């Protein structure tokens, strides 16, 4: 192999190695890789305060309490088995509604048992699929106005 070729290979390889190194270094850093667990898994593994974990679950019906500041909210997250009270401070996305699939990042406050989140991602609730599963039977909201039973 001649020297010219070797030079190209070395430089090209160097670029790729440097990229690989950056990926490897980035993984271990804050804001990089984070473990992603459901509410139950979180309850099982992370009783102590473990920072940087992301917890996934649904917003329990009737649990949203918005404070007048517009950027503080507390709610209960559930995965159908266990629940986790969460308080969050920051911009609340419009997609954050009851039943929405959310991911929070933060840590558990051992004293109050509340999860303090500094990041809140909300996926549009899968209302379409839910509606599709009801399928054959039209949802109660479709009853013509005036003839509907009283709401709860």
């Amino acid at each position, binding site marked *: 192999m001649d020297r010219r070729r070797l*030079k190209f290979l070395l430089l*090209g390889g160097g670029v*790729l190695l440097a990229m690989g190194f*950056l990926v490897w270094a980035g993984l271990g850093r804050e804001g990089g*890789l984070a473990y992603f667990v459901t509410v139950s898994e979180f309850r099982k593994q992370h009783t102590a305060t473990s920072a940087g974990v992301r917890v996934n679950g649904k917003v329990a019906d009737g649990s949203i309490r918005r404070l*007048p500041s*517009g950027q503080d909210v507390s709610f209960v997250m559930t995965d159908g088995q266990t629940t986790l009270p969460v308080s969050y401070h920051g911009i609340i996305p419009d997609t954050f509604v009851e039943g929405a699939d959310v991911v929070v990042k933060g840590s558990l406050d051992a004293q109050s048992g509340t999860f303090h989140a500094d990041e809140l991602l909300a*996926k549009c609730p899968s209302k379409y699929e839910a509606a599709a599963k009801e399928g054959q039977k*039209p949802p109660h909201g479709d009853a013509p106005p005036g003839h509907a039973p*009283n709401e709860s």
Partner: protein
Amino acid sequence: MTTFGHFALLAALIAAAWAATAAFLGAVGATRGLQRSAERSLLCTAGFVACAVFALEWGLLRDDFRLDYVYHYSSHAQPLAYKLGALWGGQSGSLLFWSLILTAMATVMVATNRDKNRALMPAATAVVGLVLTFFLLLVNVIESPFVTGPLRPDGVGLNPQLKNYWMLIHPPCLYLGYVGFTVPFAFAIAALVTRRTGDIWFRTTRRWTMFAWFFLGTGILLGSYWAYVELGWGGYWAWDPVENASLMPWLTGTAFLHSVMIQEKKGMLKIWNMILIILTFCLSIFGTFLTRSGIISSVHAFATSNIGPAFGLFLGLVFFGSLLLLIFRLESLRTEARLESLLSRESSFVFNNLILVGIAGTVLLLTTFPLISVQLTGRKVTMGPPIFNTVNIPWALCLLFLAGVGPLIAWRKASRENLRRNFTVPALSGLWMLLAVLMLDPAGYWEKLRSVFSSGAFDGIKGFYPALTFGIGAFVMGTLGLEFHRGVRARQHQHGESLPVAAGRMMWRNKRRWGGYLVHLGVVVVFAGIAGSSSYQKETVGEITPGQSLAIDGYRLHYLGHEVLVEDDHLGTLARFEVSQDGRPAGTLQAEQRAHVNLVFPVLKEAFQLAKAVPPGPDRRRAALAMYRLIGEMEGRAGREVKTPSTEVAIRSSMNPLRPTRFGEDLYVIPLAVDPETGRASVRVFVNPMVNFIWLGGLILVLGAHLSVLPDAAERKRLRAAMEIEERAVA
């Protein structure tokens, strides 16, 4: 109409399958008649798919809620444009729309190659037919848009966030990009199959590649713009899997556009170009798949669905099939020249390619890492945006640097003289800019320099990225300016033309080159916008009542008052602000906090319709307030929310060139909460310097891309010459 749609889809599938089969038979050496039949059958597919789309749009327009698709993505109240746009609001409709675009492209491909490329066309037709068959199989068998359910009086409708003007433009743009790479890919495969690996395949498809690349890039920018103005978090890019999905094929497509120039001029990098186009097409399919399948959890994830395995199978088939074919044809892709020196145009292109593909690779790795991790360790993980920035920003800067080097460095081997002549001025302008930025805040940068050594290189070096971006950007602008200056001066000397005439003629005579330069200029401007807005952003949060003010970075936001509204399908509380910038009045702004009432509750639905019927004026206001009270009461009683909030941010852009320090800056006001009774508002305000450079750079990019695809007499001559040589060689 539903039955009609069903059968149109079925007919389209049959026609596409026949097109693929007949063209394949034609390609392996059967009669020429079969190829004509395949082409005609592609045209028929186009007709049938158009019929199916028409049937679905008909259903959407006529509010045919028996159709599941119409029920889920449309409603009576949905404005006409969004009823039509609902075609790409859901999964099966998107797939149908994808097929429609591909058939339209196939039609153009058949029409423009009626008497040309007879050798390549059979295999190319077969590939397009095969891709079409796959997508039509999906919409016929797995995800039909024509599934019907019971009679329903009204539909669910699109999400409030999707009901936005950009929703009508951004997805079609992206789809044009994704789909557009099919044709260059098909011709590449055809070139491999027929062993006609000369330069005809990429010369024929240069415009297709540009077209796809252009729409993909524009689609990405439009998506960021949409996120910026609509989603209301003050940013425009979050390294979300779906965003990454569109970025990856764009990166490899950019690499392809560049390296194909080297093959054109030097006959090098032939294998590499094949790999690039295969990668780009596969990433396009993968992008569609990521977007539609929701396999990686994402805020965009529209649905978790059953198209995953089919897509995986198809993708694997295409990828490994193409690679296998490539390996069998390696001997016909021998290079005609070799890289001679690290300091040469060839090698600057090679490194540009390496970095582009490297970035695409890391983005792919990081995006799919959660999937890999589950497979390998059984633990679920996620990737935050910081890691993408850590990895990609340094390389993006290298890339920007190469954009300045590539156009001016000599072919084969750059002499000292060439380097000195071409790069002294640009290098100086870059250094001056770097120094100027550093001098803005010498103490701060000194501190950052020290932290590089004390607290680790990673965080320290981050502080220098914006300054470096501006410096390298100035370097690139320097090379462009030098090239411009030289070209214009030469024309002025030779033809005695005035400056504008010389500039215009110079660009017109060499549209590809100057189109490319304009694109580079656009990229520099976009980079500057990203650097400026991400590193000099300022932010404040405050609670104010009407009459009070909020100050941030030379701005004063005076709260004039609030208003309550009942509109379309929502209640709204509008806050009005008077803005002053550096003491000068700068107009008014209005931000709105909306509440989409849950009309599932009959009481609310009735009350809402009553309130909407009240004529505008104080009565309407009272009705709106009563609605708010009713909602509050019901929420208290039911213990759950009966409204969906949505936020309309207010943006004031400073585009006055007379105030250069503010040029391109946005004042971005997010209404976090506005009390409908008292008007007490909690707002979050951002000042985003230079953010409009991103959109401005996008416009320059659009202009450049257009210039470079305009018909060019010289290029046509070259293509004809290449074809003649090929014909003679075959004969």
